[in-house]
C-alpha cells in the first residue's frame, strides 16, 4: 500500500503524472501509435488516481482536504500548497474522465502536415496537468501561476493543430486570457499587500486570507474583486468579453476544444466560487447585480447567436456561452441550492458539450465540412451517430431525465427567491435552447439525404444519378460509428443518464463546500430555499 500516495500526495501525484506523461509521450516523435497508446495509459492512470482521490475525500469533513503544503518562495510569502474542496474535486474528476475520452476521440484524427501525434498528445497531457494545478492550488500565487501557464499548451494545441484560421484564433485566445490574467495579477499583488498590512507578514494562503477578508474595507475589496472579475469574465466568458471563444472553439482541434470549453472555461466559475466570494465578500455582494446582468444578457444573446450560426463548432461554442450565463446566475444568486446547481451544471455542461463537440467532430471527420448547410439527412445513413447527437443535444437543452435538467432546475429554483426578475428572463433561455438544439438536429440529421458534405462532390448539382446509386455512395462515404467511436461515447452516455436520475452522490460532495462558500461570503440562504438536496 505504501506505493499508493495518500492525502496531499495524491494531489501531487495527479499534478505530476500527466506532466511526466507529457515528457514521455513527446519522445515518440516518429511512432504515432506508441505515442497515442502511452498517452492513453497515462490518462487512464490519472483516472485511477482521480478515483482514489474521490474516495479519500470526506464530504462532511474539513473545508479543504488532502492538504499538502511546503515552503516555496518565502520572499513572496508563496507556498506550494495543494488541497481540494468538493467543488474542486468534482472538477478534477470531470477533467480526469474527459481526457481519456478526448484521446480516444482524437485517435484517428488527420493532423495538419508536419505535425506529429506525439506533439498533440503531449500537449493534451500538459494541459491536463496545469488544469489539475489550477483546481488543486490553495495558495493564491500558485493558483495564478497555473492559471497563466495553462494557456501555453492550449495555445500550441490551437495554433498548431487547429483549423484554417488557427493562427488568428490562437493569438486571440492567448491575448484575451493573458490580458485578463495580468489584470488579475494586479489584484493578486494587492491581496498580498493588504494581507501584509493586516498581519505584518504578507501571505497568499487561501485560508488565512479568508479569515482576514472581513476586515478589508469595502472600497479596497471592490478594486481587488474587479481585478479577479475581469480575468474570470474573460475566461468564462461573459458577454461582452466572449468573442474569443467562438473563434478558439471553432478553430481548435476537437480534442482541445472539449478541454477548452468543457473544463478550462470553468476555471472562471470555479474562481468566482473559490476566490471572489470568500476573499471579497462585501464586494461580491455589492457587485452581484453587475455579474447577474451580464450572465442573463449572455443567456439570451448567445442563445440567439447560436440559432443563427452556420458553422457547427461555432454553434457549440455559442451554446456554451449561453450555458455559462446560467452557471453565473446560479453562483451570484447566493443560495445553496443555486450554487450547488451551478457547480453540478459545470460538470454536466462539461459532459454534454464535450459529447456534442465530439459527435460534431465525428460528423466533420466524415463530411469534411464545418457548415451545417453541407449536411442533411445523416440519420438515414448513420443512425447511431444521429442518435448520439440527439442524446447530446437533449442533454444540452436539459430534458428531464438527462443530467443537465437536475442542475438547471436547481439553479432556477434556487435563484428565484433572491432574483425573481433575472430568473424569469433566464427561463426564456430554456425555450431558445430547445429551439437551437432541435433545429440543428433537424437540419443535419433529418429529412432526405442531401448536402455537399454528405452526398459528395462527385454528384454535382443536376447530375442525374439514380437515387439508389447516390445512397450507396453516400453510405460508403458516411459510415456509421465504429466500435472505437462507440466506446468513446459510451461513458458519456452513461454519465448523462446516471447523473440525470441519480445525481445525489455528486451533490453530496458539492453541497457542504457550497454551504461553506456562502458562509464565507457572509450570506445565508433565503428563507424559502430549503438548501441543497
Amino acid at each position, binding site marked *: 500500500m505504501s506505493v499508493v500516495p495518500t492525502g496531499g500526495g495524491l494531489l501531487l501525484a495527479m499534478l505530476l503524472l500527466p506532466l511526466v506523461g507529457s515528457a514521455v509521450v513527446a519522445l515518440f516523435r516518429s511512432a504515432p501509435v506508441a505515442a497515442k497508446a502511452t498517452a492513453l495509459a497515462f490518462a487512464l492512470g490519472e483516472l485511477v488516481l482521480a478515483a482514489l482521490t474521490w474516495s479519500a475525500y470526506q464530504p462532511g469533513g474539513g473545508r479543504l482536504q488532502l492538504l499538502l503544503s511546503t515552503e516555496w*518562495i518565502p520572499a*513572496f510569502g508563496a507556498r506550494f500548497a495543494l488541497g481540494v474542496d468538493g467543488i474542486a474535486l468534482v472538477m478534477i474528476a470531470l477533467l480526469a474522465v474527459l481526457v481519456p475520452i478526448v484521446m480516444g476521440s482524437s485517435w484517428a484524427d488527420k493532423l495538419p502536415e508536419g505535425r506529429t501525434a506525439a506533439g498533440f498528445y503531449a500537449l493534451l497531457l500538459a494541459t491536463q496537468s496545469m488544469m489539475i494545478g489550477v483546481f488543486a492550488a490553495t495558495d493564491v500565487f500558485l493558483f495564478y501561476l497555473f492559471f*497563466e501557464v495553462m*494557456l*501555453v499548451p492550449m495555445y500550441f494545441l490551437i495554433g*498548431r493543430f487547429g483549423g484554417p484560421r488557427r493562427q488568428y484564433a490562437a*493569438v486571440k485566445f492567448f491575448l484575451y486570457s493573458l490580458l485578463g490574467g*495580468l489584470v488579475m*495579477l494586479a489584484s493578486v*499583488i494587492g491581496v498580498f499587500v493588504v494581507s501584509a498590512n493586516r498581519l505584518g507578514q504578507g501571505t497568499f494562503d487561501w485560508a488565512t486570507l479568508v479569515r482576514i477578508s472581513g476586515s478589508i474595507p469595502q472600497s479596497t475589496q471592490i478594486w481587488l474583486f474587479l481585478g479577479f472579475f475581469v480575468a474570470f469574465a474573460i475566461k468564462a466568458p461573459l458577454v461582452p468579453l466572449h468573442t474569443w471563444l467562438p473563434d478558439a472553439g471553432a478553430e481548435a482541434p476537437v480534442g482541445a476544444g472539449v478541454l477548452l470549453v468543457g473544463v478550462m472555461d470553468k476555471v472562471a466559475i470555479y474562481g468566482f466560487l473559490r476566490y471572489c466570494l470568500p476573499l471579497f465578500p462585501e464586494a461580491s455582494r455589492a457587485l452581484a447585480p453587475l455579474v447577474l446582468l451580464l450572465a442573463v444578457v449572455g443567456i439570451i444573446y448567445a442563445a440567439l447567436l447560436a440559432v443563427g450560426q452556420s458553422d457547427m463548432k461555432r454553434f457549440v461554442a455559442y451554446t456554451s456561452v449561453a450555458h455559462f450565463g446560467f452557471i453565473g446566475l446560479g453562483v451570484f444568486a447566493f443560495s445553496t441550492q443555486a450554487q450547488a446547481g451551478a457547480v453540478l451544471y459545470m460538470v454536466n455542461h462539461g459532459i454534454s458539450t464535450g459529447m456534442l463537440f465530439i459527435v460534431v467532430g465525428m460528423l466533420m471527420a466524415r463530411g469534411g465540412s464545418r457548415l451545417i448547410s453541407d449536411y442533411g439527412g445523416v440519420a438515414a445513413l448513420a443512425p447511431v451517430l444521429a442518435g448520439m447527437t440527439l442524446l447530446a443535444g437533449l442533454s444540452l437543452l436539459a430534458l428531464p431525465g438527462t443530467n443537465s435538467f437536475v442542475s438547471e432546475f436547481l439553479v432556477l429554483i434556487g435563484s428565484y427567491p433572491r432574483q425573481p426578475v433575472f430568473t424569469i428572463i433566464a427561463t426564456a433561455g430554456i425555450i431558445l435552447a430547445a429551439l437551437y438544439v432541435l433545429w440543428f438536429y433537424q437540419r443535419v440529421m433529418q429529412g432526405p439525404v442531401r448536402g455537399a458534405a454528405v452526398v459528395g462532390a462527385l454528384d454535382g448539382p443536376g447530375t442525374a444519378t439514380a437515387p439508389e446509386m447516390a445512397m450507396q455512395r453516400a453510405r460508403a462515404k458516411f459510415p456509421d460509428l465504429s466500435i472505437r467511436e462507440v466506446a468513446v461515447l459510451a461513458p458519456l452516455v452513461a454519465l448523462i443518464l446516471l447523473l440525470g436520475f441519480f445525481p445525489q452522490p455528486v451533490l453530496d460532495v458539492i453541497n457542504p463546500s457550497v454551504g461553506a462558500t456562502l458562509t464565507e461570503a457572509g450570506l445565508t440562504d433565503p428563507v424559502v430555499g430549503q438548501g441543497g438536496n
Partner: protein
Amino acid sequence: MLVDGLLGGGFAAQVQHVQAPAVDYGAIAPVLVVLGGACISVLVEAFVPRSARWSAQVVLSLLTLGAAGAALGVHLYSFSRGGGTVVTLAGTMAVDGPALFLWGTLLALGLGAVLLIADRTVEPGGAFTADAAVRPGTAADRAQLGGTSTATVMQTEVFPLFLFSLGGMMVFTAANDLLTMFIALEVLSLPLYLMAGLARRRRLLSQEAAVKYFLLGAFSSAFFLYGVALLYGYAGSVTLSAIADASAGTDRSETLLLGGLALLLIGLLFKGSVGPFHTWTPDVYQGAPTPVTAFMAACTKVAAFGGILRVLTVAFASTRWEWRGLLWGVAIVSMVIGVVLGLTQTDIKRMIAYSSVAHAGFLLVGAIALTTQGLSGTMFYLLAYGFTTLAAFGVVTLVRNADGEATHLSQWAGLAKRSPLTAAVFAFLLFALAGIPLTSGFTGKFAVFSAAVADGMAPLVVVALVASAVAAFFYLRVVVLMYFSEPAPDGPTVSVPGAFTTAAITLGVVITLLLGVLPTFALSWAALGVFAS
C-alpha cells in the same frame, strides 16, 4: 580636503599630512582582477603572435572572470560573516550588499557574453571585422568577409575592450561619489562605442551604430557632468551621502538640487535605455555585432540601473516626493514607447531593443519604490532579464543565411519545422520576456510590481501590467511565425552552434528556468543588504 589644505598652509607642510587612503584590497579585489585582466589582455594583443592570440585571449578572459568570481565569493563570505559593508578608497567605493549582488550579476552575465564573443564556429573568424577602418563596400571590405585565409583569423581586440567595459560597469555600481561614477561611466562606455562598430557584416549599419552611440553617449555624459556640477554647487560635495545630508532640512536652493538631479538622471536613464532617452537603442542594438548587443543589453542595463538605484536611494531618498512624479511619467513613457513601437518592428534585433525599452520602464517602476523590497526586486529583475536577453541574442546569432544573420522577422517563419530545438528555446525565452509564470520574467515582474504596490504605486503597476499584455503580442508574433507558419522556401538555415555559443545559450536558458521555478536563492541574495549611506 586636499584643496583646503593647500590654501591653508605651506605646501611642504601639507605633504606630510597627505596620506594614501586606506584600501581594503579584499573588498575591491573583483574589480582589480577584472581591470588587471584587461591590462594584461592589452599586452597579449601587443605581444602574442596573431595565430595564438584568440586562444590566449579566451583563456585570459575566462580566467579573469573566474578569478574575479572567486574573489567575490571570498569577500561575500566575510561579508555575510559579519564583515558587512566596506567603504574604501577614501569613501569613493562602497562595497555593500547591492554592489556585491550586482558584481556577481555582471560577472555571470559577462561570462555568458564572452562566450558569445569568443565563438568562431557560427561565423568563420567570429562576428568581428578584421579591419574596422576599411571603408564599407570596397574590395577590401568584401575581402574581410571571409574566403581569404587572413580574414578567418579572428580579430581579438574586442577582448580587452570587453574587460575594460566590464570593469567600468563594476566600478559604476559601487561608486559612492558622483565623480567616480562619471569616470566609471566613461570607462564602461568608450569601449562599447568601439565594440558597436566592429561587425563583420553590414559594416555601414555597424559604423552608423557606433557613431550614433558615441555622439549621443558623449552628449548624455555631458548632461551627467553638468548635473554633477550643479549638485556640487548645491551640496559642496560630490559624495552621495553628503548630498543627502545637505538636502535634509536646509534652505538651500532647490533649483540646484532638482536641476542637478534631472541632468544626472538624463545621463543615467540614457545608459539604461529608458524612454524617452532610448533613441540610440534600436539602431545600436541592430547595428552592433550580435554578441556585443547581447553584452550591452544585459550588462549595461545592470550597471545603469545599479547606478540609478544607488543615486536615488542614497542621495535623494529624502526629496523623493519632489521627483517621484516625474519618474512615474518617465516610466510610463518608456513602457508605452517600448510596447507601441515594438509592435511595428520587422527586425528581430530592433524588436528586442524596443522590448528592452519597455523592460527599462518596468525596472524603473521598481527602482523608484525606494524600499528594501523595491531594491531587491529590481536587482533580481536585472539578473533575470540579463540572462534571458543574453540567451535570446545568442539564438539570433544562429539563424543565418548567405548574408549573415537573418534578422528580418519574415525569415523566421516555420523555424520550428527546420530546427525544433532552436525554436523551442527561443519560444521559451520569448515567454520569459513576456512574463509567463515558471520563467524568471514572471518572478522578476512579480517582485518589482509587488514592491511598487506596497509603496503605494498601484496605478503605475496597472499601467505596467497593461503594457506587459501589449508587449506579449509582439513576442507571440514571433512564436506564431516560428510554430504556426510554413517555412519560406529560401529561408535561413540554423547554424549548429559551437561549444561556446551552446554554453552561453544553455546558461541563459537554465537560469531563466531556475529563477522561475526556484528563485529563493537569488531573491535572498538580492535582499542581502542595503546601500551604504
